């Protein structure tokens, strides 16, 4: 878990890991690949193939169906798509595993409850078994009970899919549930120029 206050550079670090921004100096190594050495297109492809992303507010495409949202990463990741096999069946299977009703698959994302959106966001990150899941404060808007239930679900799924999880949070109480907690103040020094 990556722990840090607001403004401590958590999101910037995630963007560096995902390769959407590049460091001015130094390298970023993900599973033995120096993403800073890759071209822009190769970095995008690497992200699509290797990383599943869960946003803070789940951020589904509101006009797409549940199926569209879950299958979206496969559109940009041919190897992940190949690994998935029957993508539609896998999406339906993930929905079932995540406790979503079977008839929800064709529903529009903007018609889902917050809890359902959470689960669809997890399914979207998990499809095609990417080696790494990055979750950017996915529990920040939830009450304590919902937080625990969501983490249970997330841990169960990442374990079942043999996927690493890097979760960002500013809540130190969640730290005890993770194998490793990295504090941003321990690895980064933030210098902000006054405007």
């Amino acid at each position, binding site marked *: 878990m990556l722990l840090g206050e607001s403004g401590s550079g958590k999101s910037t670090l995630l*963007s560096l890991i995902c390769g959407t921004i590049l460091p001015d100096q130094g390298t970023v190594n993900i599973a033995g690949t120096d993403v800073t050495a890759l071209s822009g297109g190769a970095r995008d*492809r690497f992200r699509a*193939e290797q990383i599943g992303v869960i946003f803070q507010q789940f951020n589904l495409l509101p006009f797409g169906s549940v199926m569209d949202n879950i299958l979206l990463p496969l559109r940009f990741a041919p190897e992940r798509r190949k690994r998935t096999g029957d993508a539609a069946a896998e999406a339906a299977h993930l929905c079932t595993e995540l406790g979503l009703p079977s008839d929800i698959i064709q529903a529009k994302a903007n018609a889902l409850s917050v809890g359902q959106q959470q689960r669809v966001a997890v399914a979207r990150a998990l499809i095609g078994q990417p080696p790494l899941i990055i979750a950017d404060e996915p529990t920040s808007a939830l009450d304590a009970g919902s937080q625990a239930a969501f983490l249970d679900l997330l841990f169960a799924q990442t374990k079942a899919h043999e996927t690493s999880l890097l979760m960002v949070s500013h809540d130190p109480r969640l730290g005890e549930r993770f194998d490793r907690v990295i504090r941003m103040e321990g690895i980064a020094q933030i210098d902000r120029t006054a405007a």
Partner: protein
Amino acid sequence: MTFRLAIASLFARALTVGMTILAIALSVALFLGVEKVRTGAKASFADTISGTDLIVGARSGSVQLLLYSVFRIGNATNNVTWESYLDIAARPDVDWIVPISLGDSHRQFRVMGTTQAFFEHYKYRQGRSLTVADGVIMDDLFDTVIGADVASTLGYNVDDPIVVAHGLASFTEHKDQPFRVSGILEKTGTPIDRTVIVSMEAIEAIHVDWQGGAQIPGQSTPADVIRRMELTPKAVTAALVGVESPLQTFALQRAINEYPEEPLLAILPGVALQELWGIVGIAETALLAVSAMVVVTALIGMMATIFSSLNERRREMAIFRAMGARPLTILGMLVFEAMLMAAVGALLGVALLYAGLVIAQPLVDNAFGLWLPIDAPTIREFSVIVGVVCAGAIVSLVPALRAYRMSIADGMMVQT
């Protein structure tokens, strides 16, 4: 799937997208409508006379001669004497010649004196002959054949009386020599529809009691007496000429233009029409340019719509980026959206045009005598659709490039 999602995104913004498409549709309908009217008017003019090799009149301008002799627009400044007419008619290279005498009117319609040969030789719309819808061609000196519009506008039937007025827009009428409608012509879509046709002798007959443009006071010759009179015309306004061989056309034209007895002018109808188009061409081009500008304005409106949607769509772009979409994919999606809007707008515009044509065709025909054909879409219309789609793609590049830069700057950070 990306493009399906782009379509779904368009549906999610149905109101603004719908308004943009409507603006494009109306502009395309206007552009193609102007084009239809332009080509319709051109075809209508060109179809008015067919099979006539030369038009002969007093020396003036070729366009003026064409306008007054064929389209009943404007007036002749002078006439051709009957002797000159006979002289030309007697030439061996003249196959047929039809005299036309204009000058009088009935209500808002021109009266034209001619001979039976007019019905035989006058052709319109690629060689069609005049046909009588009701009644017969003039049988008696005081018979008249009227065009379809004259009959429908004034509610005339066969055997109805007609009194011809002296000159144009005149209150002086040839009341003593009324005509009888002997026939009503089929609609032709030409100025013939708005013409009252009488014989050349009838034109002389109604002017028996006239001198110097006014009726001789107290003189009214009875119709029976007039019938027995020598009614050889003294002059004609113009003559339509057919030559024996097309090869002789230019030689005959030159001979008439150099006619020593009086100043005459012979014109080739097609060449004079081209001259006419040359004159109205500037206005025509200006009209087309204005309607093209309306299309450009609608496309710029679409560009503004896409621009204004960019901020609210940053979240959508960040999601795509996080899932692995390249900035070029984001650019491609926006260009695709714009092309789709432009294509739907252009197709809707074509549909609006045809719906408008179905409604406006009879109204325009009645009001202006302009027949707008409803044909299958032409290659030109298809090229306009393709052009609008391409122009839509080009104008969308401006917001799409901004989205491209934004998606690089924002990365997968969702800006809300």
